[in-house]
């Protein structure tokens, strides 16, 4: 049997509270041993396996993106399971929760089966399907959650749309308790957001682009927290974008409500200033908000109110994006830029390394109930090796994603993935 030895890197593993120089031995797709660097007897592994020299590099558990859109089935011209997972491993991600708003939507076991089969054949990373909350994602009646759980979904979400009917949301939070799976809520009161295309504020006042107020998100976060409190169900708030939203989650957690939350790298990095030149790549839902919101999101990340950083990777082709701002689809790709954007918070000393890695590994694993997100003996060997000092420029023609809709094109980045290992196999680098 052959080994894989990752030698001399700085291992950061928040689950085991480890930060130091370690050698990692991988065998049969799993972590066999994690040893203080230099403890390994000289010739033990020579000639029996492959050695990766990780000196000067950081070794972290493979990142888990609990929110992305892989577009397959149905919109393969934007992304496929193959291209999406390839982009993922190039960005240091080893597992992806794939949102259910495909065509057809993932509201029954046959769609889940299709996704899992396709991923097992063509996927470079682990694909974890998310099922819809409601049949046809219409917001009217619950899906067969038991059937979907048995087929392998890790959560339920109508993401892309809000569950506007409060009674349906209540019952979803209630019924899902039997399966111990979270409901991931895209919080948006669509009556309030209306025809809005950007954040309502100074930029919408100046550009004449229709705004959607922060309150279209916060009233729904408030509603969902109330319903989680009523039912005891597991609520996960997708892509928080507002200061008041963070505050509501902070208070709810203090009261002991069963709620977790995620934020995207783009909401941590950009404000609505990015749409002033009518760049459709910066059109996203929830929209890029004000500087106060961005500050509050970073603070929420620092103090633990926000558990997870998730990309909301949402590929669109030129057909959807190379049009008038009003007509353009919302969403941006994020798998390949996420790590560098996250690391910039570290370099600016807004968050410490272990806390940052936790939001990308340990916490999403905990919320989705995965035995991953750590380099523990016996765990599947999902690993990312990072050069924290590598500098690179985002060139959309060189990204692995099938789509190029990113407002970060041309940005100078610091920190890059050197190698990615999924289930013990080197899949990138």
């Amino acid at each position, binding site marked *: 049997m052959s080994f894989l030895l990752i030698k001399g890197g700085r291992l950061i593993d928040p689950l085991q509270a480890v930060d130091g120089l370690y050698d990692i031995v991988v065998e049969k797709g799993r972590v066999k041993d994690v040893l203080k660097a230099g403890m390994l007897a000289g010739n033990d592994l020579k000639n029996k396996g492959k050695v990766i020299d990780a000196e000067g590099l950081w070794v972290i558990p493979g990142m888990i993106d609990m929110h992305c859109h892989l577009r397959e089935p149905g919109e393969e011209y934007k992304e496929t399971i193959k291209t999406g997972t390839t982009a993922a491993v190039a960005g240091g991600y080893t597992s992806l929760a794939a949102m259910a708003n495909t065509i057809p939507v993932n509201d029954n076991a046959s769609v889940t089966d299709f996704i899992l089969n396709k991923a097992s054949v063509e996927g470079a990373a682990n694909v974890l399907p998310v099922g819809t909350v409601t049949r046809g994602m219409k917001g009217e009646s619950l899906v067969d959650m038991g059937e979907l759980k048995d087929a392998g979904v890790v959560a339920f979400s109508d993401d892309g749309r809000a569950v506007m009917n409060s009674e349906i949301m209540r019952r979803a939070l209630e019924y899902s308790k039997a399966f111990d799976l979270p409901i991931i809520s895209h919080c948006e009161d669509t009556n309030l957001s209306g025809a809005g295309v950007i954040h309502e504020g100074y930029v*919408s*006042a100046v550009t*004449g*682009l229709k705004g959607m107020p922060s309150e279209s998100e916060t009233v729904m976060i408030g509603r969902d927290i109330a319903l989680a409190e009523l039912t005891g169900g597991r609520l996960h708030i997708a892509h928080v974008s507002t200061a008041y939203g963070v505050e509501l989650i902070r208070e709810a957690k203090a009261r002991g409500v069963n709620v977790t939350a995620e934020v995207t790298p783009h909401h941590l990095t950009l404000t609505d200033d990015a749409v002033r030149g009518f760049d459709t790549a910066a059109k996203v839902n929830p929209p890029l908000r004000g500087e106060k919101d961005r500050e509050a999101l970073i603070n929420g990340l620092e103090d633990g109110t926000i558990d997870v950083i998730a990309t909301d990777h949402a590929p669109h082709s030129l057909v959807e994006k*190379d*049009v*008038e*701002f009003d007509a353009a689809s919302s969403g941006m790709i994020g798998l390949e830029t996420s790590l560098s954007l996250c690391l910039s918070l570290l370099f600016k000393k807004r968050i410490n390394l272990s806390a940052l890695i936790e939001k990308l590994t340990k916490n999403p694993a905990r919320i989705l109930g995965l035995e991953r997100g750590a380099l523990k003996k016996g765990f599947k060997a999902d690993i990312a090796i990072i050069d924290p000092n590598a500098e690179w420029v985002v060139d959309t023609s060189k990204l692995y994603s099938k789509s190029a809709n990113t407002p970060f094109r041309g940005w100078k980045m610091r920190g890059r993935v050197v190698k990615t290992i999924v289930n013990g196999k080197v899949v990138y680098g």
Partner: protein
Amino acid sequence: MIDNAIKRKDLLGMDDLTVDEIEAVLETAEKLKEVSQRDIKKVPTLRGKTIINLFFEPSTRTRTSFELAAKRMSADAINISASASSVVKGETLIDTAMNLEAMNPDAVVIRHPSPGAPHIISRLLKSSVVNAGDGAHEHPTQALLDLMTVKEKKKRLSGLQVVIVGDITHSRVARSNIIGFKKSGAKVRVVGAPTLIPYGIENMGVQVSYDLKESIKDADVIMMLRIQRERQEGALLPSLREYSIRYGLDMEKLEDAPKDVIILHPGPLNRGVEISPEVADSPYSLILNQVSNGLAVRMAIFYHLLGGKE
């Protein structure tokens, strides 16, 4: 004859223009205005140039004004009425732009319901792009003609109190005028129902008021905006009747304004809704001056952008 002070390809918004550029356009417009009073209303300045009017929204007035402006400068003007629904048929704004580029025009005048559409076009075309109104964003030639009209009457812009009344949220005329008047040193106050004034507008340096009668007491200029009848459906306005009582300008409300106040309206008028017929036809009203100045301003813009030399 006139020094060409504008070194830019496009006119996309008042936001882009410097104070000097604004003044240069107004100066040129004053000189060109005389052309329209001649027997032969034409100068050869832009002979051989082609100007395309690309209108995705019906607007006979603005289109005619641009067309006439082009013709009085001896340019060839072509009108293309594209419906925004051609996008539904699969032809995108980008396709349209590329098609135009192939015809090699010197300027494209574009009106479009979506904010930023002229900006998209301008990135693709080598020719000059003039924004003739993009959604609720900007309508720079309207602001320039309003500045010209006020300056003609008041002999200055700096220090004037300008009051803009109506649906500010959905008005490109309001946005361009706020920027234009502020840059020219005037004070601007916006007045309307709270549902029609966007949050954040104060940061453009304007005062906000919900009371028309009170807010015109110190006005040098009152600009009435056209109210879209559709606004009363939905939650923005209870009824046009109530709107007209609160925010329509009639002789009675005008009594509180200074005697030398002037009144502007970008047209077309909703007589009896935002402006009473008596006010529209009163000596305070400069609505027809706006129309003739519109022509002069557009001639001036073509002159500056297309590098006219004599």
